[in-house]
């Protein structure tokens, strides 16, 4: 019996495939846990949703779709354009500076609830000053790489 058990527990790791050894174990554990979570947490939750006692996360909740998806789109455009503009002026950080000014301005405008003359001036000033300051301190003073 004892030899049977110890041979069951003995293992040799083949170096050629050692990169798959631990990930395979983790993947299996993750899959098993996922099934248990589905059975014990998600299924009862979905039943409660059907009865109308609970609501689905994200889909069943009220959300400010305009600001949420606007944020996602703006961030994606910001990251993308930064690289594009940055390639026009390599090693200067201008890509970061120019695109950041536009991004900060647009995001502020999108998040603002009441547009007044005073708040617009503050937002515009901030959009120019903040990225310029960051660019000056980091790219110029500290010589940190920026797009």
């Amino acid at each position: 019996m004892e030899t049977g058990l110890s041979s069951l527990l003995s293992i040799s790791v083949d170096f050629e495939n050692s990169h798959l050894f631990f990930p395979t174990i983790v993947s299996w554990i993750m899959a098993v846990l996922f099934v248990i979570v589905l059975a014990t947490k998600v299924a009862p939750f979905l039943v409660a949703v059907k009865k109308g006692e609970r609501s689905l996360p994200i889909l069943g909740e009220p959300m400010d779709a305009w600001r949420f998806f606007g944020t996602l789109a703006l961030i994606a455009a910001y990251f993308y354009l930064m690289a594009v503009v940055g390639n026009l002026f390599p090693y200067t950080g201008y890509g970061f500076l120019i695109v950041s000014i536009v991004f900060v301005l647009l995001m502020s405008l999108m998040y603002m609830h009441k547009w007044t003359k005073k708040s617009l001036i503050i937002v515009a000033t901030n959009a120019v000053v903040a990225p310029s300051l960051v660019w000056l301190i980091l790219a110029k003073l500290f010589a940190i790489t920026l797009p």
Partner: protein
Amino acid sequence: MELLSLFDITFFLLVAFGTLVGIIFGAIPGMTATMAVAVCLPLTYALGLHNGLALLLGLYVGGISGGMVPAVLINIPGTPSSITTTFDGYPMAQKGEGEKALRICVIASVFGGLVSAAVLFLFAPLLADFSIKFSYVEKFLIILLALSVIASLSNSMLVGIFSGVIGVWLSLIGDYSTTDGGNGKTRLMFDFMEPYLFEGFSLLPVLIGIFGISTILLEAEKGIKSEVSGKSVKVSKDAGFSLSIFKGSLTNLTRSSFIGTFVGLLPGVGGSAASVLAYTQEKNLSRDSSQMGKGAPQGIMASESANNALTGGALIPLLSLGIPGDSTTAVLIGAFTLQGIQVGPLFIPENTETWYVMMTALVFANIVMFFLMFYAIKHIAKVVLVPKHILFPIIVMMCVVGAYAINYGIMFDVWTLLIFGVVGYLIQKVGLEVAPLIIGFILGSQAEVYFVKSLESAGTFTTFFTKSPIAVVLWLLILASVVFSVLMSRKNRAKQLQNIAS
């Protein structure tokens, strides 16, 4: 005397600057110490190790402390760890005792901070000394223990473990690095991803994405409403404060500080657990707790000394074992790596200078925090009202700088921000736990190396049980954390049933 030569005026100025910025971040509801550290990381790239640490530790201490300001003044905890400060702080502010309450907070905070710094100073080298003898087997078990402790303190242990395993899985994406004795082959991805993900996701962009970008997405979804509009921030002028309030509170302060330090020691447990635990203990144990919740100074003292005591506590496992004690120290681990320092059992013996520098920075940050908040609280209180439409774009911008510059200009790191910003948002929405996931992500690749190397040398799974007495003790601790979690959830369930019945 040699030690003194390590410091110059820049060092102390950086600690002070970090503390101030940290306080501001902490004071703005929704911004946390973790975010402060993550956002300010790019500033440390250009600084040396010691000055970088000065800034980061200042940010950490300031960020944890700042949360008290909105907690007292507008009943919104600035950071999760100051949630119990609102229970008594806000009632006091309503009675016109806002300034008095804040000053009590400040003194309790500095007390907690210094007690935990002392514990850190005494305890971390001991733990490091002890763990230096660990082989791969014990190191693997320590990671397993860390994950099981975090999971057992999550709302649901199952979900906690699941989140932790997801974190480990994510960390395995990329190659099995040859520098760790692997074979350099990639796994868990498709071929077309190889140019981007050969080395897996970089740690810091992942953390900055989860703590920075997803916070903004969560707020955007709610429409960036200003919680503070309509509320006025008034720090009343009252002469009601004197040190005599603290008479007879030494037990409370000391107990709460040690609770905070201990909770900080446990990996991945946030500050809210520390202050809630300290608060309930004060409620259970003090002679007169009838006023608690209605504006009793003792409540604020318990809460604030505990949450500041976290700082020293969370640094203990970080510096002696390389396991972060909370999400902020998780970001710190990234900052260390960036400076070329590997935290773990060898850190303190091999970097004695750095260790003393850190202790100095930590103590000095607490002192700066005290003076800034004790005397300038009225001015700091105004930042609570900074509108989010100004703040958020700047935060996104700083996140970009942090991610881009980390590996000297890799655009994919910036995209990682967005990927994990969205992942972090979804995780929190579907009810998974962020803390175990992060800790799993940080420790996952080490866990792999320890696990595989242990098996390669021993050739049998039994080595994990029979290697040494320490291994057996670690298994017992893992078992204890699981049993503890099961008992707690039973108790909670019984309580819920009782509540429903009554």
